[in-house]
């Protein structure tokens, strides 16, 4: 067994374990903490795949940004320390159903995808290339989605400011 395989399994356990604990935890703050572990696991998986840029972005955006915001909103809501109530049967049923169908879908996609081994010619995801791709207008360019997303974020920011001003 290669050491990289061991590392792969450790990371996988962290990701799945974190995700499972996040949804099963009875305390909302703990759930957020487990979510952090899961997201960090994903980031380390990217590192493991030598997609360093994506990994760093994963940490900056998800762990450093979004989860901190989630934790902040948990702080601001009352009773963050209390245990959550058990969800009722109907809700459990439909949640399970949706999770199951998502799982089936994913399995289906993975099963039908023809994985090619291309370990011989690894692509170097240079930041320069990523940047170029992000701003290119050619067929596989991402300029339009990029602009749409930034526009959306701008709208969200303005909305936040408006809401904050209204309270005072």
């Amino acid at each position, binding site marked *: *067994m*290669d*050491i990289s395989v061991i590392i792969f399994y450790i990371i996988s356990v962290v990701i799945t374990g974190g995700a499972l604990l996040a949804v099963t935890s009875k*305390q909302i*703050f*703990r759930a957020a*903490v487990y979510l*952090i572990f899961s997201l*960090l696991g994903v980031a380390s998986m990217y590192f493991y795949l030598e997609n*360093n*840029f994506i990994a*760093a*972005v994963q*940490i*900056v955006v998800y*762990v*450093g*940004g979004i*989860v*901190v915001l989630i*934790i*902040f909103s948990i*702080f601001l809501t009352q009773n*963050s*320390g209390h245990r959550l109530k058990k969800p009722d049967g109907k809700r459990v049923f439909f949640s399970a159903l949706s999770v199951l169908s998502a799982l089936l879908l994913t399995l289906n996609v993975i099963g039908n995808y023809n994985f090619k081994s291309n370990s011989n010619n690894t692509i170097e995801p240079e*930041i320069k290339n990523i940047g170029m791709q992000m701003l290119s207008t050619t067929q596989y360019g991402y300029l339009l989605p990029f602009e749409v997303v930034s526009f959306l974020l701008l709208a969200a920011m303005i909305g936040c400011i408006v809401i904050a001003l209204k309270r005072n």
Partner: protein
Amino acid sequence: MNRIFLYSFTEMALYIHKLLENAITNTVLLQITELAIIGVTLLISLVILCFFLGWMERRVAAFMEIRLGPNRVGPQGTLQIVADTVKLLFKEGLTPNKSDKFLFNLAPFIVVTASMLAIAPLAFAKNFSIYDINIGVLYVSSVSSLSVLGILMAGWSSYNKYSLLGAMRSGAQIVSYELSVGLSLIAIVVLSGNVSLGEIINSQQNGWWIFKGHIPAIIAFVIFIIASTAEINRAPFDLAEADQELTGGYNTEYSGMKFAMFLLAEYINLFIVSAMAATLFLGGWMPFHIGDWESFNKIMDYIPSSIWFMGKTFIIIFIIMWFRWTFPRLRIDQLLNLEWKYLLPISMVNIIIVTLIAIMGWHF
């Protein structure tokens, strides 16, 4: 490899690698052993570094406050901090009764781990770093944003309102100041056209960025020092601890070794921030070079690269300590105003100017 420098870290690392290669044939075992050696060496050297920083802080504080500071335990009081550590080790690590015990005990480790991770891409000397990742700058800034999670965790799980307030403050503070830190880092990334720390250092062969990048680089440097002082929760931005307001903030309830972990993380962060400033703006281990003054540059090369790096880093550490022992603390709204109304707009404009300089090739 230059053989003149007997204390070259690279040589040492290679020597140990060869030694181990001969001893252990199994590659998996070899890799694990090397990882373990690197880890243990890193831990020990970080602890020694923190001992030194702790001692230095006390002596600097004493120097500023017209007193002597620790000077009894060991030569010049150097062992005082060791004595303190022993004391902290033997103290009881209290856990409040109503706290979330799992998170309460986890938080210090998260904080320490986050700050230790960030040390990986730093080049301590010529060709010597633990992992010269190709996105070094981004990596450091992303990993250092993890420590806020540990602080939030510590504050929330303590079941103490002071801790909670401290955690909220530190969360707001770190999230805001990350922007300025990031933007001032990007200024150098734009100038050098590289994200890897090694490449950035190499690009300073003919002069450090703070000199080559004209005034915008100096502005970025100043903003970096201010914002990163805030990001590592040091005075005058130590609102998260703020003894006089929150009796210690997020670490109010911590004692013994768990408290020492926060202290350890604080000093490692201090070191990382200073090392980053030294690397990006002052050339890291790169000696002081002036353009094409060949003979002058040669003379400068005779000073070992590790001494250059440590010298620059400790000058910046001294400056940050100087802040701490002379300035009063800001209020929370002033702190956020400083970031959102001054530092962020300035660094945004600055980055545009820097980009212009980089595109037009106006820098040296």
